[in-house]
């Protein structure tokens, strides 16, 4: 039987080794709700966890250690005080976990260190596979979508001697959830043009068959400089705006997975019989209607209050590149309101 490997790439926050276990369990639980599903989805798909957060941890630990050495020498109180914000850098917190990861990703050295780690991890798995019929897909969330864009582009442009992917290699599907690849693009790697993580029918050097772009209409993170390729499924691009409410943390990957528009196509990667097209379409329609809310929300009024509260947070211009600070402040404020 053919094999399908799905690389799971996490977003901001703390994601130590083993982080994907709960995500895979969630996927299995969601798939098990359908009577067309036989067995566990994780038996049909090989989920491969990708970690890059340890790079950011190493950087923070280095700064903390270097600061500690200065502090320990107790030589000059003014210098020690000026550096005191580095103290406890590795301990985190909501603001630091969210913004800190993004700031570290914006810094060239930590960005390249994280990206090359992901490149090496994906390259090692692809290079090891023997089967002529193994397929590969990517499920990336939040900051992970920008990391995925960088890593796939790096793998595609690798010079001779560093190529782990053969020419004309394609990922079957790229599930880009709460997509930040356009927000975090750089001058030399633009999400719509020079990136290699694009559908092949949209760009000849694109590295995926189908690109699925997901955002929740109230999630602040993909809202700023939203990724929105101006094409359709004729070119292999599919976009889905979600509007379901099952937990306050709308940005969480688990919340996005709750929607059949995401877990449905994942199920069909294993076998199209896992969820026939009509059943998938019906499930998606239910999530616009009777199944629109649940979980932490038991009443319509609760959902409406929640929507209004988040909507009340003052919004910056989401498109301008000059107001990154304002956009980050909006994201933090909206996340605080959500949580």
């Amino acid at each position, binding site marked *: 039987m053919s094999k399908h490997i799905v690389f799971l790439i996490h977003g901001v926050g703390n994601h130590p080794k083993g982080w994907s276990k709960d995500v895979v369990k969630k996927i299995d639980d969601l798939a098990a709700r359908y009577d067309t599903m036989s067995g566990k989805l994780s038996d049909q798909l090989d989920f491969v966890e990708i970690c890059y957060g340890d790079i950011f941890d190493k950087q923070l630990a280095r700064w903390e250690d270097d600061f500690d050495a*200065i502090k320990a020498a107790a030589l000059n109180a003014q210098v020690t005080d000026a550096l005191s914000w580095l103290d406890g850098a590795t301990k985190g917190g909501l603001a630091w976990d969210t913004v800190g990861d993004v700031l570290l990703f914006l810094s*060239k*050295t930590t960005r390249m260190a994280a990206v090359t780690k992901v490149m090496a991890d994906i390259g090692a798995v692809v*290079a090891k596979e023997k089967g002529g019929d193994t397929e590969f897909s990517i499920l990336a969330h939040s900051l992970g979508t920008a990391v995925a864009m960088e890593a796939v582009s790096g793998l595609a442009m690798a010079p001779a001697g560093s190529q782990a992917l053969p020419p004309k*290699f*394609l990922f079957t599907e790229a599930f880009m959830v709460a997509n930040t690849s356009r927000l975090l693009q750089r001058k030399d790697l633009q999400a719509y043009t020079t990136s290699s993580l694009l559908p092949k*029918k949209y760009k000849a050097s694109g590295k995926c068959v189908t690109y699925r772009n997901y955002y929740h209409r109230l999630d602040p993170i993909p809202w700023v400089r939203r990724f929105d390729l101006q094409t359709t499924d004729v070119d292999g691009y599919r976009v889905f705006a979600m509007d379901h409410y099952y937990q306050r943390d709308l940005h969480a990957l688990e919340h996005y997975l709750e929607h059949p528009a995401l877990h449905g196509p994942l199920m*069909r990667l294993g076998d199209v019989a896992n969820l026939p097209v009509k059943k998938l379409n019906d499930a998606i329609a239910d999530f616009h209607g009777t199944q629109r809310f649940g979980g932490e929300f038991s009443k319509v009024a609760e959902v409406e209050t929640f929507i209004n509260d988040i909507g009340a947070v003052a919004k910056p211009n989401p498109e301008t590149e000059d107001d990154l600070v304002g956009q980050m402040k909006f994201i933090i404020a909206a996340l605080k309101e959500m949580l």
Partner: protein
Amino acid sequence: MRRRLVLLLALLLAPIGAASAQTLAQCESGKAEAPATVSCVAKWAEDQLAKVAADKDEMCGIVRFQGRLRQLDIDAKAIADSGRSSMLPADFAMQKASMPGTEAKARALFWGEVDEVLLTLGEDVEPLPVGACFIRSKPLAKMLEDTAEKVASFVGAYNKPMQQAGAVSLRTLSDTWQWIITDGFGQFPWERALDDALDHSAMSPFKLPSRQLIFFHPSVGAEILGGSRWTDLRSRTSLFVEPIGLLRYRFDIPNGKRDYWGLSALVVLNADEPPGVGGLLRMNKLAIGVVRHYSSDHSGLSGKWAVTATIELLERVQSARKKVGDAADNIKSRAKLGGADGPGGE
């Protein structure tokens, strides 16, 4: 028109008829990493397709597949003739693709190329894009799929050593970037931010930094101050601040070498003396410098001279001094023993 079609088919099929039939066993007995083995399986696959009968609507699948097999054979021969190693394209890796306007899928060969072939997975994918080459016949689809898988596995086996070497190279690259963070020169956040702002060169995972800016970099080191005799030397811990400097990295990745060296201005601060100014030369974690302190009345740089060193350099020097000292003591004690045991000694 019909005559032209027959002629075209004859031309396409002629090379297959002329060559002897290839068996898969012959190909499997060849070396996986040899281009000739890939040529062998390309010919085997062509032989298989030559035996297939198909409706005229589905001939496109066979013709396109054969065209690709011919190209694969040409590419493999070109590699063999050149004597160079280069990968072959993964053209025969099949994908499951969702069709436009539906989530229904088909298997796809040569996805996104002008000679794309779609094979039924049993789902209703109509209406298909105009001009699509779609194999509805399940037996034909299965045959093409199985043949493609076989060819893909041979191409994959050929590419594998190069892919694995590439993966190793990527891992070394990744380790090097991480080394810069954990063991390289530890730029503080403001240095990193300024360096990034001033560096307009193109960013690439394959372009390791060649230089880094040093900007108000604090660290702790040792000052060595002297008196009129070398036995008066004493060291004290001081705060170093390098207001400006430049560092260069040098990487020799195949040989596992990673080094940096730099030069910077230096200000030394400690509680016992007015500040000292000078310069610092560093080589990896070892650094040595010279400073002159301001005089006690702050009238100018006429205070004490001092040599500065990082703790790591001092430790190396201490360790070397200790070894020399131990060796000298050893020689002395042997000499004493030799004198005691010599003629007239007890």
